[in-house]
């Protein structure tokens, strides 16, 4: 966990806290979140019981556009896309089919897509077409990993992800309507440590 700027698992039971630190470290590594997370603090009090995780992510990746994953060339009414990164190819095809219709989108080979359009190809603005939003997947991955770290009986959950800061609160009992004071406290402890 050396790449995290701050990583702390605190608990009212120190032995349990240490063991949960190992669990958190395994889960974060397994879910490939080391590069994404900058700071993470977990607090567990099994007597209440409550589990609070607060953290800060590194710069959230921006929206992926067509020009990020393909080279674009224009020939009158034809657009040719040379795919460089296949990761989002399925999404791209879905967008192209929706935008131009399946009849006008042709994929002669794995790395080439040709699109026939009615107007001038150069003015189509296809380069800026948004294909995927990685932050959406990141949010899901982060919250999923917190659910895995959290003790299983803690079924009542609340979570939030905003502007690179996230929190996750869970308990076996009902949670208070407003958990912001609990979360703020943990953010403050984390902030004070830097």
């Amino acid at each position: 966990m050396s790449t995290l700027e701050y990583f702390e698992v605190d608990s009212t039971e120190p032995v349990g806290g240490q063991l949960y630190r190992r669990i958190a470290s395994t889960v974060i590594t397994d879910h490939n979140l080391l590069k994404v997370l900058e700071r993470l603090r977990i607090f567990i009090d099994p007597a209440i019981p409550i589990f609070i995780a607060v953290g800060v992510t590194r710069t959230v990746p921006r929206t992926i556009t067509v020009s990020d994953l393909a080279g674009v060339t224009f020939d009158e009414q034809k657009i040719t896309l040379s795919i460089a990164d296949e990761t989002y190819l399925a999404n791209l095809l879905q967008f192209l089919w929706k935008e131009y219709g399946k009849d006008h989108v042709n994929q002669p080979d794995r790395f080439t897509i040709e699109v026939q359009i009615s107007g001038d190809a150069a003015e189509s603005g296809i380069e800026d077409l948004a294909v995927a939003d990685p932050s959406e997947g990141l949010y899901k991955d982060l919250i999923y990993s917190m659910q895995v770290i959290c003790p299983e009986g803690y079924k009542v959950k609340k979570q939030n992800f905003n502007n690179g800061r996230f929190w996750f609160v869970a308990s076996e009992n009902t949670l208070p309507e407003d958990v912001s004071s609990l979360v703020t406290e943990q953010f403050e402890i984390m902030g004070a440590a830097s």
Partner: protein
Amino acid sequence: MILVPITYKGGVFRHDEILDLIEDVGGYIIQKHMIAQEVVLQALVPKDDIDTLKKVSRPLAGEVIPAPLVGTEIAVVSMSVEIHHLPHASCDIAEYLRTAGAKTNMVGLARGFGKRIGLLSDEERDIINEHDLAIYLFGNFETCIKEKMPTFRRGIKVPFIVCGGPSKEALKKIIDPPAAGYIGGMGRFMHRTKEPHEIAMLDEIVAEVSRIIDQKRAMIAKDPLSVTPARLMDIILENVPDIHEVTSPVPVVVQMDGLRVKLPYDPFAKEIKNIEVESGIRIVDICDIHPSRMRDYILLKVKPFSETGMLV
């Protein structure tokens, strides 16, 4: 005749000689696994014949290892079958106990998680009670283990071992009345047990299980069973042809004081009851036969000598 539990590991080549030898000296083969070119036998062999077996297996590059848990069926109770508890530590412990010869069953509880909401259903309780011993795999917090323990021990008649994150001493302190055994530092974790101190912990579990099994064996020896379960297994394998059609790797499971026969109760129980063990003595005379809560298997519990007045 004292039967010693052993594991034999060797090649497929001429392994039938080993099988014949074990049967000829009056031993019983409890399980036989053929893995690629390797044969693993779990058997009970008369103490005096262990040296003969070692001598015969030497030219075949076979190995005879003492396996204290052969002939036992152990329940490894996981609090749920979610990613939180599986595959580590549940599978790691179950698998390690198998290397010591035990037949382990994983019992994944439907609502075992949580300290207040954790529950043990009657079906789960009955299934655990069908085993020789249960291992409860709890979490990492003392508070939770202490609060949920009364729920999980209610109605459990077999000895159980408590595994948890806190130290052994802490577990002893919070569990009252005491459990049969304790393993500390083995709570919830999400990585594979491969480091030396983790393997040592698994060895400790085997030692703890062996200790309790030995105590139970000593208890049984005071009032011996009317027939050895391993012998009863041989009799059933000989007399019920349908058992050989069962696809399960172990169609007849040997327990310390009984057997689990993996055939449906309704059509086969009557046939099994009436099998003659020796002239005039039928299985029903020396065993209690019940339908098992595990699928619709048949569960046989051998009656002790004090009850039947017979030693077959």
